[in-house]
């Protein structure tokens, strides 16, 4: 693991169990804020605690440079990568690059880190040390805040700072997830001070030797230092020298620190002092580097001695040969100030330059750059940037690069093409128009220097910048052509593949998002993908694939887009990538809308909007607005659908191209079509066709416009025009295998052909459309409403083709009314003479369209039409209702009328009985079907050859359902699906709202069935109770048996089971009580005693009581 991230070594420390306990006291705590003045022991505490825990940890020593969130992100990513490598974890830690978004890099970084931390499945700690080094308004704090807040995994954060960092942790504090240890907490107690001095002053050679510090001296030290760890160290050093506390000031302060440091420092021999002050130029004291720096001095023993004395130094890497140390900041500042005071600035620069050269030799470019900057060695800096710039760009680590370039003189940058290029790259996208200028300047310089790599890269990023700042397509095309020319020149060459891939990728972006030439863009992306595969660069492969998918989405080719996204998923693995996610959501949204899954579509819309907004994904915005309009149109919110279409038109105007204007017209045409404003729809569709015909953004949009135009013309009765448009669209959709569009177009083309009297073509087209829809299992057509589906159904029916099952299932909202209207419309259009014959053909459809009747006989008798109870008043008296009851009681089908007359009017003479029957049958029919159609007549109650029947397809009984459910539950029970069986038993029992024909207790025909249904209910409840018992559901079992006994208080098995249940639960008295209740009821109702089984059970339970 890199030295930079190890837990610093702590030696000779006083153990502080009280603080460890506080850190450990609540496992829910995720943030440990350790605040204290310099040298208060913050790092020592965190390091000793984490060492003891032996958990994975990355220790971030923060310097001012880390104020930039990108720098902090790089530190964290490198640290996590190192840690994962060490633990052998295989998590993807790729840094996502921007392809379609703008400048929201902080959010991307936060998301990347959070996702990564979420996936770490072992205890993990991150320490941010020296937080006070960052600027107060540093963007790094926002990044920190986000990863801390969004972390719900096993990561714990230790924040070490001299001052309260500007982090908003309010919510976490409220949730008790933050522990704050402040200066007072860290201050040494009396006991700890005593331990400290015992540890420091006791000679290892003479353990137990009393240094002469008694309780009074300790109290004095504690008073003066106020428990400050740094102060204690200084006092101990002083005491070692003078064996006295006389020199102790009244109070310790930073001045006192300098004073004491001076004392310690002055006590060193001159070569050591010289060594110490010069080392203050280094951030970390790497003994390998110091060895080269101080040619005649071995740094290791000097630093080891300081470390052993715990003199403001920490070992941050315990490499056996080349350990690395870090000074405490106060001490380093002290040494640095001595260095500055005793050495002229030129000589200081010489030191830094020497350090820079050593790092350069060691290929530690970042460290070299740090010292070269301080030495003002700009040529050396520029050399590093030229060599390492591309690496930093490729890996996305641009923050450091930007910092270096910023330090260089402006003039130097202006005259160096690569410095100019890298400067612009550090401001990629966010540089706006200025970047375009800088890249163009670099390009001209590269051209003069015949630097092909520079030219290729400059053109690539000029195109990108041009696209982002919405340069006119003519300009973008010129740059594309220049790029293509240079790529042509280099055809066959294997040099600069990375640069060439970037250029192809950006040419792709230029075509797709800049000039609107989607085929050109897709082809360029394919070249980029080919090259990226060749050099095995997943980042380039991913970006080119993302841009290509954008092209496919823009062209409306969602099928290929989805395939492309699947491929991308294999490239990205689990790494978060907002562009991928947003594109995936837009394609899924299209899919959900086509399936009619509007709940899912709404969720996807909301998520897409959030991502586009959050990451500035401007190129995906129009696709999103289009989907929004389609969504609202589909759910019938036409106002919002039109608003979205208008907004797309606004976008088109701001964007400066007419493509989205065409889409906007198409969307409006769709809304008007669904609103049945066919004139408006034709008008908009024509405009859409014109605008989209001129666009190069793929043919799909153009043919969709023609489809809408064709459909609108059909409904506007321009059949010839419709036939032409639909025919063209149909051929195109067939060619590209776009099944849904093909289905819709074929169906309307079929209706058009029918109206044009081309019946055979009509049937062929309608069947082709429906076959395709059936094979794809479509449940919804976005363009075809219920009415049109009904029209297709009736048309096919008239042509002798029955597709009613599939089509009727597709219809959802008030489908019966719509179908009936269509059937009747067709019937009325047929000449009266032929009407009866046609009525026979259409009768099945007519019956299908009628509302369903349900008759409830268990409990209060009632009739429901389409689940709405019928007002009893509609029967116009008791007799029609009695007639219905009689039909039910006699078995519903083919009941001789005489039987009904005999039952209802036993006393009436035959003629009067016949008359009564006719009158009451009419009333009953009228009650159930107030407005029967003249041609089809009454449908629910049929009278044929003197036999009365209820239509079984239209009328159902609750008792039938009751029995079916009971059977179903029994089968489930046999299959071992006990939970489901219980659910079905519950449903069956729920239907039993009372006894069969409960209002007519003396109706002779009802008595037998009544007993049978009641007995069935007891069976159902008993069976349910037994299943609860099997599943150890005691409460439900008791409840079910109680319900059985409520229905039949003489059901002895019920008492037995309740007694067992209570006895098993240890409720012996309750079990006895139940026995006594049963015994009383049996005696009272039947004058009988409980059976032998019940008595045996009683005695058994009673014995339990005795035991």
């Amino acid at each position: 693991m890199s030295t930079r991230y190890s837990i610093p070594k702590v030696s000779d420390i006083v153990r502080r169990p009280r603080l460890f306990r506080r850190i450990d006291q609540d496992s829910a705590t995720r943030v440990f804020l350790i605040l204290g003045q310099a040298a208060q022991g913050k790092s020592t505490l965190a390091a000793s605690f984490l060492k003891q825990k032996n958990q994975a940890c990355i220790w971030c020593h923060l310097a001012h440079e880390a104020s930039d969130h990108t720098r902090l992100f790089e530190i964290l990513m490198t640290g996590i990568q190192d840690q994962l490598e060490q633990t052998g974890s295989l998590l993807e830690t790729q840094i996502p690059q921007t392809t379609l978004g703008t400048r929201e890099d902080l959010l991307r970084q936060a998301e990347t880190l959070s996702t990564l931390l979420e996936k770490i499945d072992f205890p993990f700690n991150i320490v941010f040390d020296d937080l006070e080094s960052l600027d107060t308004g540093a963007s790094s704090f926002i990044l920190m805040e986000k990863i801390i807040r969004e972390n719900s995994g096993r990561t714990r954060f230790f924040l070490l700072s001299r001052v309260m960092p500007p982090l908003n942790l309010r919510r976490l504090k409220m949730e008790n997830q933050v522990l704050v240890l402040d200066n007072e907490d860290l201050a040494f107690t009396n006991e700890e001070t005593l331990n400290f001095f015992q540890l420091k002053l006791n000679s290892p050679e003479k353990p137990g030797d009393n240094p002469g510090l008694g309780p009074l001296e300790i109290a004095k030290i504690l008073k003066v230092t106020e428990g400050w760890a740094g102060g204690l160290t200084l006092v101990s050093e002083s005491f070692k020298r003078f064996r006295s506390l006389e020199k102790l000031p009244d109070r310790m302060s930073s001045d006192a620190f300098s004073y004491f440091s001076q004392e310690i420092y002055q006590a060193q021999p001159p070569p050591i002092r010289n060594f110490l002050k010069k080392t203050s130029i280094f951030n970390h004291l790497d003994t390998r580097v110091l060895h080269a720096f101080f040619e005649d001095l071995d740094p290791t023993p000097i630093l080891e001695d300081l470390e052993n004395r715990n003199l403001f130094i920490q070992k941050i890497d315990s490499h056996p040969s080349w350990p690395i140390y870090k000074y405490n900041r106060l001490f380093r500042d002290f040494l640095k100030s001595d260095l500055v005071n005793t050495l002229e600035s030129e000589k200081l620069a010489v030191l830094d330059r020497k350090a820079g050269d050593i790092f350069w030799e060691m290929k530690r470019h970042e460290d070299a750059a740090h010292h070269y900057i301080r030495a003002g060695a700009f040529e050396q800096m520029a050399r590093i940037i030229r060599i390492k710039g591309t690496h930093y760009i490729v890996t996305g680590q641009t923050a450091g690069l930007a910092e270096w370039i910023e330090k260089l003189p402006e003039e130097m940058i202006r005259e160096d093409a690569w410095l100019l290029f890298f400067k612009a790259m550090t401001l990629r996208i966010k540089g706006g128009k200025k970047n375009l200028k800088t890249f163009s300047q670099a390009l001209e310089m590269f051209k003069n220097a015949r630097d092909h790599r520079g030219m290729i890269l400059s053109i690539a990023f000029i195109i990108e910048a041009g696209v982002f700042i919405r340069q006119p397509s003519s300009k973008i095309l010129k740059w594309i052509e220049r790029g293509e020319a240079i790529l042509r020149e280099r055809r066959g060459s294997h040099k600069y593949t990375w640069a060439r891939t970037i250029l192809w990728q950006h040419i792709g972006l230029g075509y797709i998002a800049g000039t609107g030439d989607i085929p050109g863009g897709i082809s360029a992306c394919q070249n980029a993908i080919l090259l990226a595969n060749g050099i095995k660069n997943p980042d380039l492969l991913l970006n080119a694939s993302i841009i290509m998918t954008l092209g496919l989405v823009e062209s409306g080719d969602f099928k290929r887009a989805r395939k492309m996204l699947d491929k991308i998923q294999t490239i990205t693995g689990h790494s978060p990538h907002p562009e991928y996610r947003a594109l995936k959501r837009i394609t899924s949204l299209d899919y959900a809308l086509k399936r009619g899954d509007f709940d899912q579509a709404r969720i996807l819309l909301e998520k897409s909007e959030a991502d586009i907004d959050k990451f500035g994904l401007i190129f995906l915005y129009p696709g999103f607005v289009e989907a929004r309009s389609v969504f609202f149109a589909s759910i019938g919110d036409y106002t919002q659908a039109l608003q979205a279409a208008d907004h797309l038109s606004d976008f088109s105007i701001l964007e400066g191209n007419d493509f989205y204007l065409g889409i906007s017209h198409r969307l409006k045409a769709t809304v008007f079509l669904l609103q049945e404003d066919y004139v408006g729809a034709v008008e908009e569709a024509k405009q859409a066709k014109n605008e989209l015909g001129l666009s190069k953004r793929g043919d799909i949009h153009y043919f969709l416009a023609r489809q809408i135009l064709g459909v609108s013309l059909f409904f506007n009765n321009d059949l010839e025009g419709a036939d032409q448009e639909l025919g063209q669209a149909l051929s195109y959709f067939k060619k590209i295998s776009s099944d849904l569009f093909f289905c819709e177009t074929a169906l309307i083309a079929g209706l058009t052909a029918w109206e044009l009297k081309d019946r055979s073509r009509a049937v062929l087209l309608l069947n082709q459309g429906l076959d395709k829809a059936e094979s794809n299992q479509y449940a919804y057509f976005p363009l075809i409403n219920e009415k049109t589906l009904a029209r297709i159904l009736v048309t096919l029916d008239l042509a002798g083709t029955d597709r009613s099952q599939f089509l009727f299932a597709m219809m959802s909202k008030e489908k019966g009314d719509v179908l009936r209207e269509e059937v009747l419309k067709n019937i009325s259009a047929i000449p009266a003479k032929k009407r009866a014959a046609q009525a026979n053909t259409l009768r099945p459809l007519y019956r299908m369209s009628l509302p369903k009747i349900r008759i409830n006989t268990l409990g209060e008798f009632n009739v429901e039409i389409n689940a709405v109870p019928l007002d009893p008043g509609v029967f116009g008296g008791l007799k029609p209702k009695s007639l219905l009851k009689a039909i039910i009681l006699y078995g519903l089908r083919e009941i001789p009328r005489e039987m009904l007359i005999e039952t209802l009017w036993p006393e009436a003479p035959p003629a009067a009985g016949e008359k009564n029957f006719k009158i009451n049958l009419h009333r009953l029919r009228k009650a159930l079907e107030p407005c029967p159609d003249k041609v089809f007549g009454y449908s629910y109650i049929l009278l044929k050859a003197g036999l009365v029947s209820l239509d079984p397809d239209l009328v159902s009984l609750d008792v039938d359902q009751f029995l079916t459910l009971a059977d179903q539950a029994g089968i489930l029970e046999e299959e071992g699906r006990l939970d489901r069986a219980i659910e079905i038993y519950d449903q069956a029992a729920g239907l039993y709202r009372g006894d069969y024909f409960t209002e007519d207790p003396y109706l002779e025909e009802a008595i037998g069935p009544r007993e049978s249904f009641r007995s069935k209910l007891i069976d159902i409840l008993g069976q349910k109770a037994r299943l609860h018992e099997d599943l150890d559901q005691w409460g439900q079992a008791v409840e079910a048996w109680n319900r059985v006994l409520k229905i039949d208080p003489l059901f002895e098995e019920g008492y037995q089971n309740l007694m067992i249940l209570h006895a098993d639960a240890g409720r012996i008295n309750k079990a006895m009580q139940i026995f006594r209740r049963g015994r009383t009821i049996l005696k009272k109702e039947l004058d009988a005693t409980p059976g032998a089984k019940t008595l045996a059970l009683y005695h058994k339970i009673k014995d339990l009581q005795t035991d």
Partner: protein
Amino acid sequence: MKILVIDDEKPTLSMFRLFLAAYGYEVFTAEDGEIGLARFREIRPGIVFTDIKMPGIDGLQVLGRIREMDPHVQVIIITGHGDLEKAIEALDLDASDFINKPVERQALNSALARAEKRAGITESPEFSCNFSIKQGQAKILFRGRLTGKADKKITPMLEWDEWPKASKADFSFDESFSVDREGIRLLMDILMKIKLKKLPVMMKGLSYNYIRFFQMAGMDKLAEFQTRSEETGG
């Protein structure tokens, strides 16, 4: 540069945010005037776009209050298409520029370019009107804010005795030029008087939005307009 966009229509805000972020600006948005003013105080942007019609505090009130806080910030008013009167009201309140809805790309680019150039100017120069004649062309340069008070500075130009030597007139407007209702009246007056002299007038240096506005006000019947070279490319 920080830009604040105030508009009560959420989709318009989204669109502005995406476009301006892609242009490289740091974009902040507010859904009404009240929030907009609070955000202004908080972030102190260099440029503000505000819709004119908003519930509560409207765009003109926003403009007025921002002017009280910072007289030099660039405030661009977004007006409804063809809403001349509102645009003039905005000019009276010293709006930096105005763009019509639906916003055209050239109009947006022009407003941004002008605002960025003017952002560096901390003091508006006093109105001046310099005139000279060169090879038969009368050249008049307008600088600063043209208001009704500029009347006395305009009169000498109209009474200039070199007019008979001129065969055409070039009116040039520099970056610092702005105008209010009375200023427009004065400008129209000048143009009508020069028309009477039967001299063709070419107006140069005006931003795209000012040209659109002057055309709306009917000045295109009195003069021709030349678009700025840097704005023709968008």
